């Protein structure tokens, strides 16, 4: 496909998605209600947020080659900082967002500066440790700020009326869709900019980049902070969607889920990561329904117990993808279309 065709297709897709709340289409099997029902819109909006989040993770993992196990921490910052500012300090929404923006720049700059002193797997371990510290902090509920295990609910009075209530789900849906488009655009510009090219060079051969005379550490830190900042922004959209914060987003399992999303979609391609995030969230949601379906419940315990656990199904799917389809869904699609093109070439 040529570039104009691709852009036109992308534009058409965005238009259809944006018009979704106004259309009464039902897709039986895929979604429970019509596409315009609040439940479906909420699920789709969550899919968009996770698509964007997976994209931010792909920026450092897929484009710089940094295997971070602490990305959940930055998402959680974007979830908890505004929630605390709104619910506990009773700040206005703009003030809370301004505070979040500052925190979301300062924290990754400091933590990234420490973590990036080591490489590869030690880097993964250290980022994991910092994320764990964040998780402990949230669960300990210092000064009754985070709400501990119960999380923090944002009452209807602290948010603008247009973002609260079942009737306004469509506004949140549009917000999530717009957010995904903005993050995609930023990521697209970033990876095609001169620093973006250097990120990819670092991924391919770090030593060579430093021999050329470039400060690898600084480029890595830049990518780390950008990715973390965008992840925090995704956290803000998430907290608006959910109407509150829950400690699940700080857990180590959540970071691992992020990794699953990116690998599921295809490492190192922007749209692959988005696809992975969307697919993961959708599967995670639908597999709970699948677990309660009559077919699964009637199976003997040996099959029923594992199949009732969404994480088991996703974990196994992940292993199979890593072992047999290293490119993920995106890679598989690409190979499929490449095979078709070469097939056409030989037949003509």
């Amino acid at each position: 496909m040529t570039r104009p065709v691709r852009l036109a297709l992308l534009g058409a897709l965005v238009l259809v998605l944006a018009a979704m709340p106004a259309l009464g289409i039902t897709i039986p099997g895929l979604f429970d209600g019509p596409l315009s029902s609040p439940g479906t819109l909420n699920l789709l909006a969550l899919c968009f947020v996770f698509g964007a989040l997976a994209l931010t993770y792909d920026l450092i993992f897929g484009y710089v080659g940094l295997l971070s196990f602490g990305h959940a921490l930055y998402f959680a910052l974007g979830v908890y900082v505004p929630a605390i500012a709104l619910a506990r300090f009773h700040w206005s929404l703009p003030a809370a967002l301004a505070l979040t923006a500052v925190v979301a720049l300062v924290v990754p700059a400091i933590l990234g500066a420490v973590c990036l002193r080591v490489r590869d797997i030690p880097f993964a371990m250290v980022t994991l440790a910092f994320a764990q510290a964040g998780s402990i902090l949230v669960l300990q509920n210092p000064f009754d700020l985070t709400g501990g295990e119960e999380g923090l609910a944002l009452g209807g009075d602290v948010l603008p009326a247009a973002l609260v209530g079942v009737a306004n789900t469509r506004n949140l849906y549009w917000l999530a869709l717009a957010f995904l488009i903005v993050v995609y655009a930023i990521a697209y510009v970033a990876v095609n900019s001169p620093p973006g090219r250097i990120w990819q060079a670092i991924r391919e051969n770090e030593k060579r980049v430093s021999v050329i005379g470039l400060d690898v550490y600084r480029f890595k830190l830049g990518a780390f902070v950008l990715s973390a900042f965008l992840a925090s922004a995704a956290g803000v959209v998430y907290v608006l969607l959910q109407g509150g914060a829950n400690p699940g987003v700080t857990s180590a399992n959540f970071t691992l889920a992020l990794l699953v999303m990116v690998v599921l979609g295809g490492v190192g391609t922007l749209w692959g990561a988005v696809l992975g995030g969307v697919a993961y969230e959708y599967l995670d949601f639908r597999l709970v329904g699948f677990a309660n379906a009559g077919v699964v419940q009637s199976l003997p315990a040996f099959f029923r117990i594992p199949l009732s656990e969404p994480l088991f199904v996703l974990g196994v799917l992940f292993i199979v993808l890593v072992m047999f389809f290293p490119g993920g869904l995106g890679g598989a699609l690409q190979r499929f279309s490449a095979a078709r093109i070469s097939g056409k070439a030989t037949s003509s």
Partner: protein
Amino acid sequence: MSTLVLLLVTGLGLGALYFLIASGLSLIWGLMRVLNFAHGAFVTVAAYVAWSAARALPGDSAWGHWLVSLVVGVLVGGAFAALTEIVLIRPLYARPIGQVLVTVGLALATVAVVQGAYGTDPLQVALPDALTKTTPILGALIPNSRLVVIVAAAAVLVALLFFLKRTRYGLIVRAGVDNREMVTGLGIDVQTAFTLVFVIGGMAAGLAGALTATYDGSIDPGRGTSMLIFAFIVVVIGGLGSVTGSAVAAVLVAEVQQFLNFYGASGTGDFAVVLLLAGVLLVRPGGLGGAAP
């Protein structure tokens, strides 16, 4: 004084558990450059199978059941690890990141199955009476379970060092940690050593699983994963690939955690351990026992 002794010994007990998990992780990393996220799953699965085996046994000899649970834990840990290495790790030797990723998938899937089969709530473990009692040491009443865990970990440390320093396979493992290409170049089969190291690490993790039940008096599906994170910290502080480093770092991390959790607000110790890790990395990126990377 008695509080101090109690905290010291309890910390040592926790450090013993960390060491059992971290030593395997460290060796696996040192030799194979694989970060094994499934190590926590080895701990959890071994703990649950050991618990089930002890319950299914006839008779009412509490000590017999306890010993069987330890043996079962070790065997299950070793078998699970061997299977993981052969089925999942071996086909991916050429793709280091892929190896890490499959262990992540395995960890997620395994813990999910354990949760599905046994529920998310902790299960109480029946222990021999003697293990629930205390022994006075220097005026402090030390729970016997702590002492047992410490003795077991010390025995594993001695056995591991003997294996590494005094046996032919230990020599190959040490040489492999030092320079894998050279060992391969000398015509030595490193593949067998890979599987061997995985089995040893899995057995130690399995023992840790069975002993966690003794230490906590209960088992729960998330315990292995939460300990794994501290074991990672221990491995990095101790220096990747160094068993002695792991032992020293395990005790250091556990004592810091124990003392600060007691004297500070709860959770302070866990937090301080992460700061300790950051500090060590800033001063010595290679950890206490390892060379600079």
